[in-house]
């Protein structure tokens, strides 16, 4: 694979006005260009057994048995594909997911909001992409939540994704937002991507065509991990 540095126009700003930590946690010195050697071109692969990646239904807590009550909230089905920049599928990619429950609460000791937890929802799990890079999981739509220390910033509903591709270079972490949410207009992170097309790559597409046996709203998001298949040498 051939990797180019990320084009800034496709990415979030590193420093964001009204987001103080983005100014104290990013280096002041210019980032150093280096050659890409074996150590960067390799990376963690084949860890699905150890990390426990498999079919995923976040809409129910991880309880076994016949009675698996569903979490409170709008049931959603999320699907998409993981590919490289040439559109080639990335199969067997581990995808880590975490999100707030429908009340906007995470199971995490750092979440100091007073929104209720849901005993039937953990909001975290891992899945593995299929042969065509495809993935699908059920969940409930996350609620919005406040960034308490900001005094004003409400995070719009979003799901966090962390993807293990084929190397250290395409290791990828992001947040995906829901279409049409008013809070999307003021979110500091989403709006730190300036080009509209690039920003839309952080938003699910409502998939109006599918209505399955269960009453889940479908959302689609494809991911393009960095990397081109190496151009063959010209002879």
């Amino acid at each position, binding site marked *: 694979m051939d990797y180019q*540095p*990320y084009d800034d126009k*496709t*990415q*979030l*700003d*590193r420093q*964001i006005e009204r987001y103080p*930590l*983005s*100014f*104290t*946690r*990013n*280096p*002041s*010195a210019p*980032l*150093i*260009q*280096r*050659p890409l*050697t*074996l*150590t*960067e*071109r*390799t*990376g*963690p*692969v084949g860890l699905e057994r*150890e990390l426990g990646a498999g079919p995923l239904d976040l809409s129910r807590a991880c309880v076994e048995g016949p009675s698996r009550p569903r979490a409170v909230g709008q049931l959603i089905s999320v699907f998409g594909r993981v*590919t490289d*920049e040439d559109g080639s599928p990335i199969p067997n990619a581990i995808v*880590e997911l*975490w999100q707030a429950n429908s009340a906007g609460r995470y*199971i*995490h*000791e*750092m*979440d100091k909001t007073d929104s209720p937890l849901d005993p039937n929802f953990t909001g*975290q799990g*891992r899945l593995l992409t299929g042969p065509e890079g495809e993935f699908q999981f059920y969940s409930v739509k996350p609620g919005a939540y406040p960034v308490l220390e900001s005094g004003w910033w409400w995070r719009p509903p979003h799901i*966090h994704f962390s993807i293990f591709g084929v*190397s*250290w270079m395409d*290791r*990828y*972490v*992001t*947040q995906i937002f829901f279409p049409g949410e008013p809070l999307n207009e003021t979110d500091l*992170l989403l709006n*730190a991507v300036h080009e509209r097309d*690039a*920003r839309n*790559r*952080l938003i699910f597409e409502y998939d109006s065509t599918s209505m399955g046996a269960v009453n889940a709203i479908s959302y689609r998001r494809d*991911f*393009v*991990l960095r990397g081109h298949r190496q151009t063959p040498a010209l002879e």
Partner: protein
Amino acid sequence: MLPSPFCTIGPYFPYDFVDGLEDLTHFNGIAAQGRHISISGRLLEQGGKPTRNSILEIWQPDANGIFRHPLDPCHAQADPGFRGWGRARTDAQGNYGFRTVLPGSYSENGCARCPHINVMILAIGVTRRLVTTLFFADSPESVRDPVLDCVPEASRARLFPRLVSTSGAAAGEYHFDFILRGGEETPFFLD
């Protein structure tokens, strides 16, 4: 097709996704070959303030200098007891800690690579991951390495963890503070 935008990991990355993965000295019930070491220290931001609740990931070859990855021509001989990848989180004081093996050297395009561990840092306020590489050598001044050579000479020494002691209980303990901004800022690579 253009790559998807990276975004910050935020404050709520599940502890379940981290805890246990800071130890790379065992894999599939097998102990890793080579010298087991610890690397610990703090993650600090501007003003020397601890950067709490952040995630560090590492990627490295095994003690014989082999990557557990199909691109490594020797990967069939990779140590079955070594995962190669690890993850840790910082506590309220910004402390992190890994247990791993001292990475082996290997030859690439006729050059010997200095033993090294790749690191990526994810934190609130960091919209795109920060990547760097730690190097291990007895005398950092004399090291030649194609990646290290790109770092301005004056700051190269900042990429070498300090061996706390060469004898006794602390043998094999390395200390390294990541400084995200200001002062003796850690060199980071363009990503």
